[in-house]
């Protein structure tokens, strides 16, 4: 039995898409085929990818079709309208600079003093030009680096933000329920709260499919149980049932755990660590 290391699996898996699109070289193609013939795991990946590609044709996502013909006929005009601002004219200062250099350098000067002055001006201008070029290069490098960091950070944000929203909104909902005043003698109107709890239960179901650390997964699960209790209560709840919500929050020390999770997953916080 051939033994593959993780690197060879990863390498082959990264080639599977191009393999299915017939974009591989002969050598790579042969490598992939040899590997999948003896690796059931990668063969399964290939079949799964094949099915995925078949389910996601590029034609299924043409958002431009949602716009009318008239919209597209006016699109270029709208871009031009945005550009109508005089500030959007490309700067031509560098052309006038070279014109000046041309004039100073090539125009014959009958007097030595005048020629000397012209050379001095030329040297100053060339020095300025070099400094400007260097500055532009530095700015582009910084912008490229910042962009890379932005893209990487954004990739990690989706699930984290969903966790943050879930714990925060669950807290607001459940604390709100425990602080509610009864509408009439010992009855509570929970219709709005129950609607919200159902939405949060769907969110919990989604989050349970995501790769979360154990603590966060447990918190999601504990909150979901209380939310289900709330969602299943009779709309005009009576005092003892609301006490169940209160009890659930206190017994599991959930408010403390929620505050920890909020702090950890807060998107405005610079450094996030698993808690």
């Amino acid at each position, binding site marked *: 039995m051939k033994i593959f290391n993780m690197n060879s699996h990863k390498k082959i898996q990264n080639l599977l898409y191009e393999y299915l699109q017939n974009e591989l070289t002969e050598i790579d193609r042969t490598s992939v085929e040899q590997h999948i013939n003896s690796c059931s795991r990668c063969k399964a990946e290939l079949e799964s990818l094949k099915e995925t590609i078949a389910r*996601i044709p590029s034609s299924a*996502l043409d958002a431009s079709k949602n716009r009318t013909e008239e919209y597209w006929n006016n*699109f270029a005009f709208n871009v031009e309208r945005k550009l109508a601002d005089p500030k959007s004219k490309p700067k031509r200062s560098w052309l006038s600079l070279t014109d000046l250099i041309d004039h100073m350098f090539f125009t014959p000067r009958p007097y030595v003093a005048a020629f000397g002055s012209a050379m001095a001006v030329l040297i100053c201008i060339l020095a300025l030009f070099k400094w400007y070029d260097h500055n532009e290069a530095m700015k582009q490098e910084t912008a490229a680096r910042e962009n890379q960091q932005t893209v990487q950070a954004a990739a990690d944000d989706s699930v984290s933000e969903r966790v943050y929203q879930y714990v925060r909104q669950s807290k607001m909902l459940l604390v709100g329920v425990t602080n509610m005043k009864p509408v009439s003698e010992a009855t509570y109107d929970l219709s709005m709260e129950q609607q919200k709890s159902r939405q949060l239960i769907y969110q919990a179901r989604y989050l349970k499919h995501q790769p979360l650390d154990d603590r966060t997964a447990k918190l999601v699960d504990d909150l979901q149980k209380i939310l289900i209790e709330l969602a299943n209560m009779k709309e005009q709840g009576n005092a003892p049932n609301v006490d169940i919500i209160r009890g659930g929050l206190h017994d599991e020390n959930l408010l403390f755990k929620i505050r920890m999770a909020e702090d950890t997953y807060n998107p405005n916080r610079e450094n996030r660590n698993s808690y």
Partner: protein
Amino acid sequence: MHAADEQLLILQAKEQDAGAFRTLVERYMKQTYNVAFNLVRNHEDAEDVAQEAFVRIYRSLEKFRGDSEFSTWLYRITVNVALDRIKQRKKKDEREVRNVENMFIPMMVQAGDNADVSMHIERALHELPTLQRAVVILRHINGLPTKKVGEILQCSEGTVKTHLHRGLKKMKEKLDFLKE
């Protein structure tokens, strides 16, 4: 459009030829819009992003030296503008609740119903992390070569392939989940 024709149009546009620039806009507007939409996930922002991309292209035309293809440059700017827009949107606290509700109401409607396949695919794509979404859009949806996607996103070809593989795998899981 032949590469030579496009180079000529770019040169003319650099010389303030409005017709040449307009031709370039009309040539690429729908593709730009599609990339923008699939990144920002709504039509209002997609329109702003696509127009802003062309505005930035026009303002930077004289800096374009032709080291890469025009479309590569355009896609790169579109992705950058879209990412800026995503970042701005996240900072708006007033839209938190609405965003969460918008995320879940479609799921509640679609679960168990005969929802349109395109809506499922769009939904699955829009829930990917931004980088994976960008790679899937450019490589799979738009069919751009791996090398070009790497130039647009300024990352290695290996990174593109890894994110494509992961992104498509996640999309399959989400599509299976939405079908349940």
